[in-house]
């Protein structure tokens, strides 16, 4: 009798490291393709249209980057917390608080010169998100309150708060009832590259990724984060202040998510509105996880996720519902999660004597 047995891998070859994820993604496409086929759509054409929608022209590529920027930033934000095993799934709320704070600056100080205004908005965005990260960080660091749940709950508080503002006191009287604030003054617009919608946020994301890489790799503090992430007790024995580091990491993580919000209102919407994020903060969790928390991989994975979003918009015009993208995204994740298992374990067939 032959029986399958799971054995933990002692080492991994590069071919396994690359082969398993690639195969997982292919499988996800096969499964979604089958689903499309049985629903009466041509899977090959759909995927081709998605690809063209995301990469088919310079405009398409620019749009892909535009969607990737917030994913890069928010992905970097949560990755820092994840390194300390802090499950910050509150990037969405931190993003909204950052957008709120930056919008407040833009709407009250619109007369300032552009660079000063943008700097103030940037700081406000960071602060808005940082406060939203500080709350769960403090509760976790000093009172051991589960941060997963607090960050999750605070998302909805932040989204409701922005909803209150744009439906209520901040609503533009000239918006004909639409829940939007007035448009920011031109000085509050983030500079763009050429005629495209790609804005300075791209550069900010790359710089932050670079800083992360250097700090985590070479600084003493980066080392502390690593130790705390691996064992809080070991860190305490070594004389590190775990609670303070937890709070600090959550402030920075929230702050960067807040910058994401600032960049979206300043670079894309030019006003505060309720749907500034179609769930970037949640997708960021997945982006960071897929990239194994590595800063440069996050940039790359976010780009691919941006392509998936933009490609999905592309197929809509051909009568294929946008929801197919979410299905595809979900199944890619499932298969990658399953593939993760193959990275950790080896399945071997063992012959068993029949008694």
């Amino acid at each position, binding site marked *: 009798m032959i029986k399958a047995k799971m054995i*933990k891998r002692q080492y991994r070859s590069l071919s396994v490291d690359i082969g398993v994820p690639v195969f997982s993604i292919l499988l996800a496409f096969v499964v979604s393709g089958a*689903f499309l086929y049985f*629903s009466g759509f041509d899977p090959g054409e759909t995927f081709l249209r998605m690809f063209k929608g995301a990469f088919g022209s310079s405009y398409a590529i620019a749009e892909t980057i535009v969607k990737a920027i917030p994913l890069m930033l928010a992905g970097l934000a949560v990755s820092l917390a994840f390194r300390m095993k802090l*499950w910050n*799934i509150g990037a969405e709320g931190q993003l909204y608080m950052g957008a709120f704070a930056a919008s407040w600056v833009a709407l009250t100080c619109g007369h300032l010169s552009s660079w000063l205004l943008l700097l103030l908005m940037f700081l406000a965005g960071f602060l808005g998100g940082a406060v939203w990260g500080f709350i769960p960080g403090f*509760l976790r660091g000093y*009172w*051991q*309150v*589960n941060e*997963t*749940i*607090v960050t*999750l*709950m*605070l998302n*909805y*508080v932040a989204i*409701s*708060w922005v*909803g*209150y503002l744009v*439906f*209520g006191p901040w609503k533009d009287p000239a918006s004909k009832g639409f829940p939007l604030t007035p448009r920011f003054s031109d000085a509050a617009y983030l500079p763009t590259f050429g005629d495209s919608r790609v804005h300075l946020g791209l550069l900010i994301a790359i710089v932050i990724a670079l800083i992360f890489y250097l700090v985590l790799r070479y600084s003493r503090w980066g080392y502390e984060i690593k130790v705390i992430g691996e064992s809080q007790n070991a860190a305490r024995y070594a004389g590190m202040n775990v609670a303070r580091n937890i709070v600090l990491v959550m402030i920075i993580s929230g702050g960067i998510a807040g910058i994401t919000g600032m960049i979206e209102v300043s670079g894309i919407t030019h006003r505060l509105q309720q749907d500034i994020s179609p769930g970037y903060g*949640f997708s960021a*969790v*997945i982006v960071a*996880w897929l990239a194994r928390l590595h800063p440069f991989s996050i940039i790359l994975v976010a780009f691919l996720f941006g392509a998936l979003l933009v490609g999905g918009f592309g197929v809509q015009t051909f009568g294929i*519902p*946008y*929801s*197919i*993208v*979410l*299905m*595809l*995204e*979900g*199944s890619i*994740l*499932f298969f990658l*999660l*399953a593939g*993760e*298992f193959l990275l*950790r374990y080896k399945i071997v067939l063992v012959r068993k004597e029949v008694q």
Partner: protein
Amino acid sequence: MDNIVIAALLTAAIVAGTPILFAALGELLAERSGILNLGVEGMMLVGAVVGFIFTIKTGNHWYGFLAAMISGGMTALIHAFISITLKGNQVVSGLALTIFGTGTSGFLGKAYQGLPTSDPVTAIAIPFLSDIPILGRIFFNHDPLVYIGFILAIIFWLVMYRTKWGLNIRAVGENPAAADAVGISVSRVRYFCTIIGGMMAGLGGAYLSLVYAPSWQENMTAGRGWIAVALVIFALWNPLWAIAGSYLFGAVEAMTFGLQIVGIKISPFFLQMLPYLFTILVLVIVTIKMRQDAGAPSALSVAYDREER
């Protein structure tokens, strides 16, 4: 006059709380066994659309509810397989399930968007009890699902605290290694609880599309799945508290409409924040008082690996 308004509000609160109660009971069971499933929102959406489609096709809402439960259980099976057999990351898998469920339900329901249900669920007044002034109207003149939710919560409590099964489930969530040592199959218990959890979420979703709305709209759960996750903590993993909690959260939802009718000027957005703020507050108070994870199952979201004992 005021009494009538309050009675109407409380009646609406129970109806609004029922879908949350179903979903929360399911999540509660899964979490008790140590599996955190953040895919409630997705499972509810799948249940909502599948329940609606089956009701339209068969003309009988009971088939709809049954199909919704099966589909909810099937989606939960994906999460169970990844988190139990493959020992994958439960937070990521749960979020993936929410994304997947949102997409799948939108895709399946495209052709049914906005149609009315073919078999409306009608209220059943409970004899005698429904004749009690005011209280009878609030509690005993509802659709059958409201009663089922209430009864299920009590059954869940009885099973969990008064049977050997319940003891096993709690043992697996608290200390899987010890449970394993006395011969309980950790993965079997976890699979069972996660799948039942998904079925309950599916039922909650179908309640929205078949009773509450009653029609299918894309994304119609509108965050109720997350409220259910919050409610589990709010209820401190106790099914009986989940009843009170779900009706309380339902009251908040009912008030967002109710207050405007009565003419009280408070932004509905502040009311929407309340369940989440309450939950954080409860979590903080209990954590500080108990100096541990607020009565959460100790092995929550930790995969069990025999070799790592």
